[in-house]
């Protein structure tokens, strides 16, 4: 029973982690909470639904198409809506992200209507039973795909030239540009990766719950934001851990009988973190210049 809840929690948490990574990476570089990020996840799920039929329900092609589509969307949003405001006050930018979020949601409502649609059957569901444990093939795929994507992200950030430039820019934006790093390119790349991960999350969740709707990104986005703060905003491993922990908290909370308060658990957690450890689990203490 306990192990079963653990598996369910990890599955849910992995999808939070995929979304949380986008929040944290963007925040790490330009100190912006991109509130439209949850909607990129939603669009990713819709692209998945639209593409699945065209590629005869091939899972990997569907996933790839959603990721590529959202890369284009994320980069375009940054370019068109955020970049022109980079030098204006932080609040203006924050409000702009909310504006973009509303735009994307409304756009999808116009296009598809507000109701939820099912996801095409692109994965055969097999359920393995072992003793009292149940593991569905969908859960396994969510865990595996998330794991591969997160490992890939770690490799990119740690070993590639652009990944190192991302880390340099997140430590010290001005000095990174003095190294000859084109900061705009780094920011575009960051949005690209974050959006791709969110799209993957959208497709996986769409399949898992067999439901895709224009407002699915609101709660998922907020929770992923909590996950990012829980791990320490700006910290990549932190977002992964935060996502997984949040998933576990939710599932165990429901198992303990608080299912009515399922969505409140994340926000209660947020309040606790902000009170006890505002920099998050892996966050560094805020450094102030003298």
């Amino acid at each position: 029973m306990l192990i079963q809840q653990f598996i369910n929690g990890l599955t849910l948490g992995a999808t939070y982690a995929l979304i949380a990574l986008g929040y944290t990476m963007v925040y790490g570089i330009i100190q912006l909470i991109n509130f439209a990020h949850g909607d990129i996840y939603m669009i990713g799920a819709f692209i998945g639904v639209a593409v699945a039929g065209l590629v005869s329900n091939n899972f990997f092609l569907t996933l790839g198409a959603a990721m590529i589509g959202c890369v284009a969307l994320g980069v375009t949003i940054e370019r068109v809506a955020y970049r022109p405001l980079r030098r204006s006050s932080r609040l203006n930018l924050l409000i702009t992200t909310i504006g973009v979020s509303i735009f994307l949601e409304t756009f999808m409502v116009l296009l598809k209507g507000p109701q939820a649609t099912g996801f095409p059957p692109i994965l055969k569901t097999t359920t393995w039973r072992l003793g009292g444990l149940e593991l569905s093939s969908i859960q396994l795929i969510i865990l595996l795909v998330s794991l591969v994507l997160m490992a890939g992200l770690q490799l990119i950030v740690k070993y590639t030239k652009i990944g190192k430039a991302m880390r340099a820019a997140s430590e010290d934006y001005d000095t990174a540009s003095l190294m000859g790093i084109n900061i705009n390119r780094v920011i575009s790349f960051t949005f690209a990766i974050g959006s791709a991960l969110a799209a993957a999350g959208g497709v996986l969740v769409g399949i898992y719950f067999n439901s895709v709707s224009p407002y699915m990104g609101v709660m998922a986005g907020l929770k992923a934001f909590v996950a990012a703060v829980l791990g320490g905003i700006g910290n990549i491993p932190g977002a992964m851990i935060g996502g997984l922990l949040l998933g576990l908290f939710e599932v165990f909370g429901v198992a303990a009988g608080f299912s009515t308060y399922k969505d409140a658990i994340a926000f209660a957690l947020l309040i606790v973190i902000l009170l006890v450890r505002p920099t998050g689990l892996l966050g560094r203490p805020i450094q102030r210049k003298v």
Partner: protein
Amino acid sequence: MLEVKEISVAYGVIEALKGISFTVREGEIVALIGANGAGKTTTLRTVSGLLRPRKGQIFYQGQEITRLSPHQIVAMGLTHVPEGRRVFARMTVMENLEMGAYTCRSRAEFKANLERVFQRFPRLAERKNQLAGTLSGGEQQMLAIGRALMSRPRMLLLDEPSMGLAPLLVREVFSIIKEINEAGTTILLVEQNARMALSIAHRAYVLQTGEIILEGPAAELMERPEVRKAYLGE
């Protein structure tokens, strides 16, 4: 090599530079000295593209660079070592050097540059896998300079390389700056430590509240009573 013409820079309504002009010729060390808040750092940040001047023009090797971005300016061989070292503390020494070589095109070029930097700063070679944040202040300054040399600059902008260092280390840093210059790199040096700066510079400009009030050969400025009184503590 570098020609700054009448640049004015303002932060909001506060004018930090009031139309200053100066030149740096190829092969020189030129010092820009002045008190805190005189506009020295602002000058360097404007030359390297981090700040945009309200008025005026900047030419580097005959080309106008006034409106270029920092990364474009670095690619032209003009590299800025910022005040306070600003190493990437959570990255290793090696990764810091790799960032310095960001504009490097080939692996071979990178290796050659790395070798040269390690030769000049053997300490960095010993500590290449250490996080830069764990280095001592002197080592961080060496890393900041070494990192800048990784782009093989033709000209270096150095902002307060002596800041926060013990006197012995200050001496060492300045002798390294002199060596770098003798190896063919032109240097614009900003310093509060006027005595050290004037001792290695060919020429110098004195900046006071956003204006250049004196200029001339470094040795000559060192003899000027007003300089001795205001900046050399006599």
